[in-house]
């Protein structure tokens, strides 16, 4: 099959602001994308990935641009026009799509390059798609490849070293607000991998105590135990806000959980001690207006990018090595894809030649009626060895190594030369 049929449509933190990404997250009905995209004609296989920083659909289309357009319409489901959506969306095809996917999996396209969470999210996305029977041979292979590329990047480069994460950014900022973090109290609202990681980082910097608030109290207790902290019920959030210094929110709540007007009186009770709030949830948990209150510093995931500019040169070097691995692996995948194209061509070529041989032998034998069985056999052998000898070179030509582009070219040549696609 042609690599150009693999497409990737999406938005990420670079192309769309969080307000747009929120609308595409389908947090109210996570099953919707699978049901809706599955029925789009021409969409043979697909996988839907939705994280804080990106929403992407990877698909194999036989319907061309029309399929792509329908998927795009579904994603923006009336909230934005086709033209408006075009400002935020990117579409990669073929080699670009493969490379993009590998970069995403290897956390090279992440807001914080090297953050470890994305691979898990990609695996979840694949599992969800696989369970609903949305993937096929091409995507199965492609996604597994993406996982192994990510693993290779992780082991062969230093891209995932601890300094490179959202939590690093959070710690940096906390230090600019509080100076020393010793004696400070952190509250985790909701339990997410990223939030845990940030809390871990803050603990390492000497934070005194961690409090966990979660909708399910058991989960809060479990998490609190990891940090030697305490758990509180979700409705104690506001009263707890009086004593904490840093709040990290990452719930899956569909709306805002802390409003400007609720927090305002709390600041008076806190005696206006500074409060650092980090919102890593999509859709957002914390009212953006909170940042207008004195002594509250509210940071969303987008804002954290600005902070991680530090130490960039070092990471850029590692990223370059990682990019090389991605390029190398995507070429390997395209090779495999090309070989998928080569084998059917060889099969078609062979069957066409053998068909012709059989037809000609039958016609010849019909005219030469007095041949002995042995002589008849000789004629058949003559025909089949002629076929084999003539096919030998074209097949070698098809199988030879080369760039995917060259191989596609050769397949095309052979198919036209022997009229394998119908017609002459």
């Amino acid at each position, binding site marked *: 099959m042609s690599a150009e049929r693999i497409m990737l449509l999406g938005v990420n933190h670079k192309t769309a602001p969080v307000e747009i990404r929120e609308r595409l997250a389908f947090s109210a009905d996570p099953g919707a994308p699978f049901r809706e995209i599955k029925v789009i004609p021409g969409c043979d296989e697909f996988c839907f990935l939705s994280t804080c920083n990106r929403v992407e659909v990877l698909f194999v289309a036989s319907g061309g641009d029309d399929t792509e357009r329908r998927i795009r319409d579904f994603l923006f489901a009336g909230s934005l026009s086709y033209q408006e959506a075009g400002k935020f969306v990117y579409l990669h095809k073929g080699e670009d799509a493969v490379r993009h996917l590998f970069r995403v999996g290897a956390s090279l396209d992440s807001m914080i390059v090297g953050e470890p969470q994305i691979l898990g999210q990609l695996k979840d996305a694949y599992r969800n798609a696989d369970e609903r029977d949305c993937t096929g041979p091409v995507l199965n292979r492609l996604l597994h490849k993406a996982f192994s590329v990510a693993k290779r990047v992780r082991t062969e480069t230093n891209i995932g070293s601890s300094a490179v994460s959202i939590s690093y950014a959070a710690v940096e900022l906390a230090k600019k607000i509080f*100076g020393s973090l010793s004696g400070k109290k952190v509250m985790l609202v909701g339990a997410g991998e990223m939030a845990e990681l940030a809390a871990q980082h803050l603990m390492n910097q000497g934070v005194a105590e961690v409090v966990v608030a979660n909708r399910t109290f058991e989960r809060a207790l479990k998490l609190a135990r990891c940090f030697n902290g305490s758990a509180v019920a979700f409705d104690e959030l506001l009263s707890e806000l009086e004593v904490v210094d840093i709040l990290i929110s990452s719930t899956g709540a569909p709306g805002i959980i802390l409003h400007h007007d609720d927090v305002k009186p709390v600041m008076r009770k806190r005696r206006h001690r*500074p409060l650092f709030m980090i919102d890593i949830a999509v859709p957002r948990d914390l009212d953006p207006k909170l940042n207008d209150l004195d002594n509250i510093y509210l940071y969303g995931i987008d804002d954290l990018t600005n902070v991680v500019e530090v130490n960039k040169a070092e990471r850029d070097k590692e990223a370059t090595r990682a990019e090389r691995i991605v390029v190398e692996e995507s070429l390997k995948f395209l090779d495999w894809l090309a070989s998928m194209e080569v084998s059917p061509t060889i099969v078609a070529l062979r069957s066409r030649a053998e068909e012709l041989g059989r037809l000609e032998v039958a016609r010849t034998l019909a005219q030469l009626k007095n041949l002995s069985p042995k002589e008849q056999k000789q004629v058949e052998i003559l025909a089949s060895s002629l076929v084999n000898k003539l096919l030998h070179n074209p097949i070698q030509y098809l199988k030879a190594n080369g760039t995917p582009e060259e191989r596609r070219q050769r397949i095309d040549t052979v198919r036209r030369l022997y009229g394998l696609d119908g017609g002459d």
Partner: protein
Amino acid sequence: MSYLLFQLAFAVYIVATAAYLVFFWSQRKEVRTAARYILFGGGLLHTANLVMRYVEAGHTPITNHHEAVSFFAWSVAWGFLTFRWRHQVKNFGTFVSPMVTALMTIAAFSSREIMPLPPALKSAWLPVHASIAIMANGFLALAFCGGIMYLLQERELKKKRFGLFYTRLPSLEALDTLNHHCLAIGFPLLTLGIITGSIWAKQAWGTYWQWDPKETWSLITWLLYAALLHQRFTVGWRGKRAAIMAVVGFAAALFTLWGVSFLLRGVHSYVG
């Protein structure tokens, strides 16, 4: 002699300011170390200048505008230098040294003539009252610098646009503490300055308080700082509000020093 020392101290302060500004841009540690030594040298020369002037005049040299502003600059410089010992505040020098230089410039352009002491000022209270009042201004000036730094840093943190100041300025907490420490020294000095002035007034003019513009304005300044400290202790005013108050309070202090002398005239008009 004192004239030469003043010129020298002035020149050295300018060099120190330049060095601090270079350090602010380049963030090279050796530049900062150099700047510190230069400022320290300037402070020593300036001290020598004040001593010489005392010897030459035969009385505490805080009786005219040149002397008052020069002593003000000296207080800021030494307030900063002694402060630096106790706690380090990143790049504080970059904000303080230009202020010292600015004050020195103003002093340099005022008449440096040594005048015979007016009879009203012939008192043991002169060195006590004048030096305490001006040293109070010195610490309030440091609080002002800290307040400005706080507002700059807070602005970048709120706007989430990290420019020149984010990496260069210390944490908000450190700046707030600095502000508080400066006021913790400056405010008692200011109070003491007003009290000693009042006692002196009783001796010289027979009344503790006569609502002279300088007196009124120093009371206004005092009330501003008192309000800030009161709010800090009772409802926990801090951060941005405290920084703004430190800036406003210092503006009032400057008005007490200059505005009153040039715009409103009263019994204090010979000082400044």
